[in-house]
Structures are given as structure tokens and as C-alpha cells.
């Protein structure tokens, strides 16, 4: 169950993007000219690596022994019994080294960066999970690492800031704009423009200019590839539905992509509904946004009628992004994946439920996925097999949750 470059048939839903990086109307490369030659170079290096068996051997060896892959596919017996409907499985990517799925694409990208001969790595981070995973692979490969992080996020994700520093990364607070993930990404792009020669920008989700959405997806697809094989072993068949949370969409794309051509498999992407998508405080770009161009891609964004980007809001710093990866925008438009949202309060309730039912403290991000599972499972028959991506553990969130619950740590 290892990742490699699988040949995809022409009429497949997995064949995107086209050679210019478009998924239907979405994606592309909307960047300043200074970056274009470099982005084309990243694309070339990535495609060369993708077609090279030795590259995947290196990736898979580290994924196994350093990250701890494959992550288990766990049948959640107590949860299944509690909700009395679908058979619920968790894909346990929270057990990865560093505690989330982000390490999958960090490992892949740093191997590409090394092949390009780049000397230093920059990244943006929201919750700090991607920042920690980036700092981790930089420590592993002895490369200097600079992480841009919104000043607001630095306040609410202190443990991860400390981890990044321990790992040797420089954490740069971003105060421009709203001081959150979108601003951190702006700042990383600005920094990259000024350091094109020696620097690789290690993007933390399936967003940004082509080839990032494709490349990050292909590294995260290890999640779906493993799930498919593990499900064959356990149930002897495909699952009936998949559920994953969506910030930029990397853990969801990783789970969904290998199943896109299996029409019997239903998929649910869960966006952060904040105070509710009918308020102005949420992060649901698909259910509450419209099409636009930001961060190098055409996709759905939270914005006003003048095309000004709105601030996102979510209890979960990792979902607090006013956009979404372009492949999700495409899958939304063609109705292959259903996108729903859950509120902060529902996610908080799900956080508590999962901790108590299974003894697994989830991150606030997959708590959103679980909140949807809590609604969905009871409506489904007992022979319906559902897989939820448990893409991160909750250690980083205990302070936020304690504060919300009015408890002191």
C-alpha cells in the first residue's frame, strides 16, 4: 500500500489538472511575474520526481520508518454502537509523527526541494501543524526553516510555536491584514518573491498556484490508497462513504482522490461553519463564498461584492482560511463531493464525544468531520460502511477547548 505514480485513464475524475494546472475552471497560476519562472521550475522538478521510482522509494521508506505509515484503519465499535447506524471507521492519521497528516506532504515536498538544489525552506501555518511538520522535515534534512504565522494564531497555538522553535525553525509573526493564515500565506509569497534563488516555498495544503494543489494531493493520497487496501482486508469491499474536514482541503483530497472513480463511494467535505454560515463569522468558502482569485489560484473565497477578501472565522485555527483548494471547487461544481458545514459549538461537542467514546482526543479540525458523522451515522443502515479521516490529534487544542469550556489547566 505504498504511494507511487499511478497511471490514470483519460476519462477519469482523477486525471486533473490539465497541463496548465486547471481543474475545470479552477486552479491555474495567478502569481506575479517574478515568481513565474520559479513556479515553472517547481512543476518541472515535481513531474520529474513523480515519474522516478527512486523518488517514491525514498518517500515510502521515510513514510514507513520516520512517519509511522501505514496509519491504522480502526473500526470504532463503541462509536458505531452509540449512534446506532453506519459502521464507523477512523483513518488514524493523528498517529503520524508530529500528530497530523501534514507530515505526508512535507516529506514529499522537501524531497522535491532537495532535488531542485534549494538551500532553505519557508512555509505558512495556521494551527501550527503544518509549521511543525515543516520544521520537523527541515531538522531531519538539516535545512534552515522560516515559518510565517499570523500574530493572532501565535497567541492561540502556543504549544506549536514552541515546538517549531525547538526544532530549530524561525517563526515570523505576521501582523498585516487580519494576522491569520491568509496573511501568513501573503507574507510567505512576498518573502519568496524576494528570495527566488535559494528558497523553496513548502505550501501546507492543496492550494496555491499549480503545481502545488496537484503535488500536495499526490503526497496526501497515501491516505486514500491505504484506506482502500485496508478496507478490502477488513470488509472485502469499498466503503460507502468518506468524511473529512476542510481547511484548504489537503487531508480531504488525500482521502477522496483514490476513490473518485468509484461511483458507489459518497464523499462529504466538512467546512468550518464558525458561528453559522448565515453569519459573517465562518470559514465555509464553498457553502458561503463565491469564485475568485487569490494566492495564485482560481477557486471559491469568502469575499464581498467588490472582490475584497473577508476574514474567516473558526474555533479551529487550521480551518480558519477564507479559500479552498481548486480541485474541491471543481468537485463541488460537478457534484462529485458534497460539501457541508458544522459550527464551532457542534465541533466542540464532537471533540468531547470522541474523547469519551473512544479515548481518542481529536484535533479541533477533524472534530468538525466527526460532528458531521454524528449527524449522518444514525440516518444510515447498519451495513453502511463509513470512513472518517481522523487527521490530527488534539494535544495542541487543549488550551482553546479548556477556555471555551470555562476550565482552567
Amino acid at each position: 500500500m505504498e504511494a507511487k505514480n499511478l497511471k490514470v485513464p483519460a476519462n477519469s475524475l482523477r486525471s486533473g489538472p490539465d497541463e496548465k494546472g486547471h481543474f475545470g475552471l479552477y486552479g491555474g497560476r495567478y502569481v506575479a511575474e517574478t515568481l513565474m519562472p520559479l513556479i515553472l521550475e517547481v512543476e518541472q522538478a515535481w513531474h520529474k520526481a513523480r515519474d522516478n521510482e527512486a523518488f517514491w522509494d525514498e518517500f515510502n521508506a521515510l513514510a514507513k520508518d520516520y512517519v509511522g505509515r501505514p496509519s491504522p484503519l480502526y473500526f470504532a465499535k463503541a462509536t458505531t454502537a452509540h449512534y446506532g447506524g453506519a459502521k464507523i471507521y477512523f483513518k488514524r492519521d493523528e498517529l503520524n509523527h508530529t500528530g497530523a497528516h501534514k507530515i505526508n506532504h512535507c516529506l514529499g515536498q522537501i524531497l522535491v526541494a532537495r532535488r531542485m538544489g534549494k538551500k532553505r525552506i519557508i512555509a505558512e501555518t495556521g494551527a501550527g501543524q503544518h509549521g511543525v511538520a515543516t520544521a520537523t522535515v527541515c531538522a531531519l534534512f538539516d535545512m534552515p526553516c522560516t515559518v510565517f504565522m499570523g500574530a493572532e494564531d501565535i497567541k492561540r497555538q502556543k504549544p506549536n510555536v514552541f515546538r517549531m522553535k525547538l526544532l530549530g525553525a524561525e517563526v515570523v509573526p505576521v501582523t498585516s491584514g487580519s494576522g491569520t493564515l491568509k496573511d501568513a500565506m501573503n507574507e510567505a509569497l512576498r518573502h519568496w518573491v524576494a528570495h527566488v534563488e535559494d528558497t523553496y516555498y513548502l505550501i501546507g495544503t492543496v492550494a496555491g498556484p499549480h503545481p502545488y494543489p496537484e503535488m500536495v494531493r499526490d503526497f496526501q493520497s497515501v491516505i486514500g490508497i491505504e484506506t482502500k487496501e485496508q478496507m478490502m482486508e477488513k470488509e472485502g469491499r469499498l466503503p460507502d462513504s468518506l468524511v473529512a474536514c476542510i481547511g484548504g482541503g489537503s487531508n480531504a483530497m488525500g482521502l477522496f482522490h483514490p476513490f473518485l472513480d468509484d461511483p458507489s463511494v459518497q464523499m462529504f467535505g466538512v467546512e468550518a461553519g464558525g458561528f453559522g454560515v448565515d453569519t459573517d463569522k465562518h470559514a465555509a468558502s464553498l457553502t458561503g463564498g463565491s469564485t475568485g482569485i487569490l494566492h495564485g489560484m482560481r477557486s471559491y473565497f469568502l469575499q464581498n461584492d467588490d472582490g475584497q477578501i473577508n476574514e474567516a472565522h473558526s474555533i479551529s485555527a487550521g480551518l480558519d482560511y477564507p479559500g479552498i483548494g481548486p480541485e474541491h471547487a471543481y468537485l463541488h461544481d460537478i457534484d462529485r463531493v458534497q460539501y457541508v458545514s458544522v459550527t464551532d459549538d457542534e465541533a466542540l461537542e464532537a471533540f468531547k464525544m470522541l474523547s469519551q467514546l473512544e479515548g481518542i482526543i481529536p484535533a479541533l479540525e477533524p472534530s468538525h468531520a466527526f460532528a458531521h458523522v454524528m449527524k449522518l451515522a444514525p440516518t444510515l443502515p447498519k451495513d453502511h460502511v463509513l470512513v472518517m479521516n481522523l487527521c490530527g490529534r488534539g494535544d495542541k487544542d487543549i488550551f482553546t477547548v479548556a477556555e471555551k469550556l470555562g476550565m482552567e489547566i
Partner: protein
Amino acid sequence: MSRIQKTFEALKDKNQKALNIFVTAGYPDATRSLEILKSLPSSGADLIELGIPFTDPMADGPTIQDSSLQALENGMSLQGTLDMLTEFRKDNTGTPVILMGYFNPIYKYGCDKFVNNAKTAGADGLIVVDLPPEEDEELRIPAQKAGLDFIKLVTPTTIGTRLDTVIKNASGFLYYVSIAGITGTKSANIDEVAAHIKQIKEKCDLPVAVGFGIKTPEDAAKMSKIADAVVVGSAIVENINKNQSVSNIVAPLSEQVIALKKAI
């Protein structure tokens, strides 16, 4: 002949270089922004780049970022920028105005509607920072059809065959970004800029304007020797910022523009 062409030819006849002044529309507020805009030609601006404010200006440094956010807070919009230009044209028909910004507000407004309304308002050209040749057809084709020049950015990384790709559908003039970086930060290495402009001139007849990092009359003087136009942006916006509380904001700005024009 377009206003841009006429301006460059008239200056060439007089053996002069052009001064392009960038201001953010609606900064520090709509009223004073219009006053500033109206004052620029008589102070010596040969061309004006009018920045359409955007929340997430990816290629701009803190000075222009802050000016954009303040303009937006004070109610400026893409429509407001066009209305401002319409006002400006009531008593100026000679100075070319180039609308400069990011694609999202234009995309949201609608490309066709935008080019028609921009033309009617009196715009001469467009510079859209995040629209490289690979993605520009959607706006470039309707813009050029409507008679707006589509001004391309050439950067220090635009070398080899990439240069051919970038200049292919350019019109009006070329905007040479003198540094690999964002606005208002580093200063350029003049020899490198000169060498690159020489290569560009071998391939393209359009005038070349140099921008990013030009702050003082001395900077402008040096750059004017190797280019057809110099662009000053962040230094102007910074001066507006400094004089926000002054009752006559136009006076210190005119002084600055006069000094820049004199230097080139």
C-alpha cells in the same frame, strides 16, 4: 494614436524621460485622493498609475498594503476608483492613466464590464500584477479590443525564452520591475537593470518604464538614464502618509513630484 504613445513621443521629441507617479485610489480618503490626482500633472507627472485597492496585495510592501487597507476602510472600491477617474478626466484629457491592481476585484466586477467602464472613465491601460501571460487572455483580449493597453511586467527573473513569452502580447509600454522583491523595499543594482533593459530593447520597440525601489530624485535621475520612464510609488504613498494630518496635503506632494521631475 493613444494617449500613452503620444506622451512618450512628445517627450522623446524634447529629449526627455517620462515620470510615472503611482497613487492608491482613495488614499488617504476619497476627497483628498482626488485632489492629489488632479494636482499630479501640473507638478510634473507625465503618466499616472492609479492603484485599485485590494485587501491582499501580494506584491506590495507594508507602505502600499497599509494605504490599500485604509482606502478600503474609507469606502473606496473598484467602482469608486473608476468614478474618481471620471472626475479627473473632466479637466484633464492629456495625461495617460493606467489602472493598476490585482485580478480579483476585476474578475468579481466582470472583465467585459470592467474594460468598457474603465475605457469610458478615461483609462488608457491596465497593469494586473497577478495575471501572468499563462492566465491573461480572459482580460487582455477584451481590454485590447476596447482600446486599453495591456502593460506587461518584466522582472529580473524574466530571462531567456520567458522574455519572449512575456513581451508577446504587450502594448503601451513595458514595466520593468527593477528588483526581485516587493514594492518599497530593496533598491536596484543599476548595472544589472541597464544590461537587462538592453536585452529587452533588442526584442521589443515599446518604451520601458522602470519601477520598484525608486525613492529619491537621485534614484530617479540614475534610472532615467537607462529607461524611457521611471515609476515612483511607495515614496509618494509614504509622503501622503506622513502628511495625513496636514491641512493642505497637495503642497508637500507637489514639492516631491516637482523635485523628481527636475531630476530626470
